[in-house]
């Protein structure tokens, strides 16, 4: 059993929410991922991830203002919770730990 269950894509989404602090809603997250990681993100994948993360309590949301280009639909902004912060920190620590454990030679194949 993992201490903080977190998928790879979910981790990215969380990081991006952090990056776009105060400005993280569906479209901005999608664009940020697409720009930074040069990968396509489908609406479905993104929103599923957001629902999962919210269910796990790693992020929380609040409603923004409806705008004209969204035909009057409100934005929903996301931010990282304390638990979420721990979860990504934990993920990063495990990665770092792994990095540190790799012998230098292993990363320089001949």
């Amino acid at each position, binding site marked *: 059993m993992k201490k903080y269950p977190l998928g790879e894509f979910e981790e990215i989404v969380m990081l991006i929410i952090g990056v776009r602090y105060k400005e993280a809603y569906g*479209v901005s997250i999608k664009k940020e991922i697409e720009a930074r990681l040069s990968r396509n993100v489908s609406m*479905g994948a993104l929103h599923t991830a957001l629902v999962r993360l919210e*269910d796990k309590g790693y992020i929380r949301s609040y409603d923004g203002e409806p705008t004209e*280009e969204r035909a009057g*639909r409100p934005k929903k902004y996301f931010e990282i919770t304390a638990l979420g912060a721990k979860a990504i920190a934990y993920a990063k620590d495990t990665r770092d730990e792994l990095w540190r454990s790799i012998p230098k030679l292993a990363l320089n194949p001949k």
Partner: protein
Amino acid sequence: MKPKFSPPKHFLRFFQWFCHPRLRDHIEGDLIEVYNERVGTVGKRKADIKFMLDVLSLLRQRIVRPIKGNKNSNNYAMIKIYFNIGWRNLLRNKGFSSINLLGLTIGLTCAILILLWVQDELNYNKSQKNYHDIYQVIAHRDFNNQIFTDRNMVMPLAGEINDKIPQVKHAVVTTHLQPRNLAFGGKKFKKSGYIVSPNFLDVFSVNFLKGSAAEAIADPSSIVLSESTAKAIFGDEDPIDKVLKIDNNQDAKVTAVVADMPANTTIKFDYLRSFNYLSDNVKRDMKEWTSSSWTVFLQTVPGADLEFIEKSINDIKTEHDPRDKDISTYFAFPMSKWRLQSDFKDGKNTGGMIVYVRMFTIIAIIILLIACVNFMNLSTARSEKRAKEVGIRKTLGSAKKQLVTQFFVESIILSFISFALSVLTVSLLLPSFNNLVNKHLALDFEKPHFWLGALITILVTGITAGSYPALYLSSFNPVKVLKGTFRAGKNAVLPRHILIVMQFVISILLISATIIVYQQIHLIKSRDIGYDTNNLITIPGSRDTQKHYEVIKQELLQTGMINAVTRTGAPITQIWWRTGSPKWEGKPEDINIIFTGLAVDQDFTKTMGIKMLEGKDFSGVPADSSYMLFNQAAVDAMGLENPVSMKMIFGRDYAVLGVTDNVIQESPFKPVDPMMIFYNPDNSYFISIRLNDGIQPQQALASIEPIFEKHNPAYVFEYRFVDEEFEKKFLNENLISKLSNIFAALAIFICCIGLAGLAAFTIEKRIREIGIRKVLGATVQQLLLLISKEFLKLVLIAFIMAVPLTWWFMDNWLEKYDFRIDISIWMFAGVGFIILLLTLLVVSINTLGAARRNPVKSLRSEQR
């Protein structure tokens, strides 16, 4: 920047439908935002496609809503409000509500009565347990150029079927319904029943109250009585083992009492007996394979191969009577068709009662529809009044769905009340309705299907009546309504006018149809029937009357009230004998005419009042038995020039004594059949008595009865007035005519109610216009004309539409009659005139008050 393009609508709808409501808004926002951006970069077409893909990509477990949907915990409160507001609305507009209520109640009452009748007809014979497996054996008999369908079978057929066809469980042979004189303790009763083969009770479900089925008719000297018969004869005494005297010559012991058969059953009887297979008569009949006068029923094993059974029956018949092979085709006629599809013509089933069942079902639906149309009409007419309510409700956040529900609840409340009222009316009317249609209909309050039917009727009526107003009223634009610029314009008026025209079309159709039915029946009734039915009495005779006939005749004539007496082999209003044609010199080979035959005594034409066209009547000398009379139809059918004294061979030699006028005996709707009349007093049991002119029948009967009591003491004195018997041939037609009168009248009444309501509304709307016109000098007549004009136009359109429709329908209906009326233009003109008058009347009554009103009153106040 306003988005100029919108994403593919259906996909957006689809998304809104499947998405979890909690997520819907913001994901939809995301979708639209991305879409708009894409329209700018890659163009609308590609953006559309990508949008669709996005929507599809969202079909994921966590995003799709739960199947149950989201529950609104507030449902109860909302429903309560619907009812509350609905109820208040009905109470506030008492006039309007009561007009609607009256219309709907009448419509529903008609519909319930008709459907009760229809249900009873459809359930005919269904109380029989073996309903699906019982058949009657019937034959199509082909006499070269005409086929007639015969229900008479030979007696031994049933036994042979029992022995030879394993798929037949039981084959039953019975007599026709036999009227018999039952005597007990000095009292006499005329009762009708069957003599049957003992397995009758295995096939037909009969409910035994006393005695048991196994013993009941095993012995031919026993008799089974129906409950009502037992009650009539024995009162409260126990009838078991009592001995009855039958027809003054046989004794029978009562072995069982059975419940009366349900009214809607084909096989009904007062008594049952079994054949005495040891008697000489029955022994002889059991060997008789050509002369048919019995009825044969089958009960097959479930799922039997009918075609095989029919083929086997034909084979059996051919084996015993090879000559019959070319004439008769035997088949099994299922119980489900006995009542409703019993008519055959030229060897084909042509329906029967089912025509009327269908016709009345349609009428029931139409009447109910007219009532519903009234409701729609009046509701939309009042739309302007309720438009503001709709506007305010919408502004306060009412969804369209809620408004629709509100209006439906109102119409369902109304239909519920009117259903309750019409059930009440129906229970009050049922006795007289039963009397009219000669049935025992009842509302089954205990049965669950009554309540189910009630629920369905209420909902269907409510929803039909409420559908148009609900959808129409709830679609108002609140801004327009509240600004006061709303006017129910052409869009609202047109459907209303269509509805009114439709009602009038139906009314005109029903009135015209009623008149045509009446004219048709009148035509048939005024046909020359060839004899005089008035003042003519027929008395069925017996062995005793035959023995004492001459004395009886003398005594009858001595009363001074009686003009003539004769005897016939069958009642004059019936045909009991059909046969092939006699042979004569010069008869074409290929001709084969079916003749009817009648045995008579002297004074036949004198008593009946039949004209002799040629030759003379029998004079009562023994030599008369080698003569025969023809009717005119026979002479025409044979193509004879000089029939009198011609030689005929019919079993033996005859000479033609004379030609009588055509006499309508059986169906007044059909041409008269060719007839042979024989002098055969010994076989003429029916005594007919012609009263002198001016003698009251009751007075004559008082002196006739003692004569019969004296010479025929064992029998109940029975008599028939021939004119009444003849009138019975119109039973169906008279019923149809009466019912269609009633329903046409009701349809018009409902129509007028609707018209009145609409007129009242129009006037209310134009009250100020009327006021101003009056101030400017318009007279009351001018005002009446002004309002009426609008309605008269509609009536005219309806008239133009209804005429060809009626023509087509009624021409179809008339087709089945050999003698029929021509539909006249004048009849339509008359109907049109009546409808026009009615419209003017209804509209004027409503307008008069407004037109006479002091204009100051209508103009002074700001009503709106």
